[in-house]
């Protein structure tokens, strides 16, 4: 009759199990906060990266957008030459008037283009030469 399990042993076992579950829970909570932080970081990175990539690395959209800009009536007289390479497009005009330059620069600087280089040179009071390389 004395062989029955000591209730204090059962109590101690329960306490050990309780401590073990607390330990496991605390580990899981820490994993959760870590994985949450990683997820948020990834989400933030993905948003930024996809925004930047669509702005600077989407060749098709840069090409389309540039075509729209060059079709503007005020730029038709500027005889802008377009030369595409694998990684860039070069726009140039040997002579264009100031208004056309203002219009073109306004569009290009306000647009999402990766401008690699440009050269604007005054030819006379109303004319300038223009060259710009836009990467994609």
């Amino acid at each position, binding site marked *: *009759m*004395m062989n029955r399990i000591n209730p204090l042993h059962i*109590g101690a076992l329960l306490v050990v199990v309780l401590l073990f579950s607390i330990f496991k829970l605390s580990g*899981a909570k820490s*994993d959760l906060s870590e994985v949450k932080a990683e*997820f948020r970081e990834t989400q933030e990175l993905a948003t930024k990266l996809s925004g*930047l990539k669509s702005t600077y690395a989407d060749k098709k959209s840069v090409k389309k957008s540039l075509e729209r800009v060059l079709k503007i009536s005020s730029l038709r007289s500027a005889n802008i030459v377009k030369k595409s390479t694998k990684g860039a497009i070069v726009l140039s005009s040997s002579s264009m008037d100031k208004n056309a330059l203002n219009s073109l620069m306004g569009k290009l600087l306000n647009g999402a*283009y990766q401008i690699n280089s440009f050269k604007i040179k005054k030819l006379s009071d109303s004319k300038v030469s223009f060259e710009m390389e836009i990467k994609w």
Partner: protein
Amino acid sequence: MFTKFNQKYKTIFLDSSSAAFELDEKVNVVLSPSMYWVKKLSLPLQKVSEVKKLLESIFEDTLPLGNYNYSVYKEGEFFFAFAYDDKFIIDTLEDKGIAVANVAGVYFAQSELGFIEGAVKINETQSIFLKDDILILLPCCWVEESGDLNIDEIKLSKRGINLAQFGHIVDSKSLYKIGAILVAFIVLIMSEWMITSSKVDDFSDKKETLFAKAKLQATMFQNKAMLKKYTKIHTKQVSIREITSIILSTRLRPSETLTQLILKDKKITAYYNIISQPTINAIKKELKSKKIEFNIDKKNGHFIFEMIL
């Protein structure tokens, strides 16, 4: 609990006045009438379980102050109710040299020796005697004994009791309550753990989905490197636009002319053929306000603003 095996163990009769035992084997213990309280009851109840509920109140006014456990069995028309102090029994066992771990079973003399007739000597100084079906302990000289009792030869019943070794510290009800609370906590915490683990898996899945949806590279290291590259491009583009805007929006006097504006490598260079000090100051002020590094030079009759990206 182990009653069916208990017959193989030696049986001893335990009384607080017994001499110490020298035992290193398991034994069955028959408690002397001096170690428990017994009542023979005739009650209008049929089941032992019904009587069990009343035991505490049955002994309420009989017992001295202490922690007691109760037991009952039915014999014929009568119920035999017992009250015993576990700690007192355990202390007596230890006092008599019997380790608690060596006790195979504990029985009341009442339930095991009810068959005796007349007085039976149980040790040098004491006898037991059955009066009105109740076994009582008497000094041996009070009655004439019919003989000695060889307790080792009696066949033990199944009416043994379980001693609560820690009953004096905390009663069984409290133990059950504490146990139940602990179990409830364990269940709660385990559930919380499972929910949390499942959330961890969810977030891991979401992260994988995000990787696929946003067409990210396989590792965060690669993605961070890519973000760094594009952020650098973006910063440079913003800077190009800021500098170009400052240069092109600065009002020049009629005599002043901007002849060239060149973006090459990591700098923008503006060439002026004539430029007044107030205009230079205005450009400088704007560049400084945007924290743009710049140099001013004069070469071949041109004023040159060189702005670093």
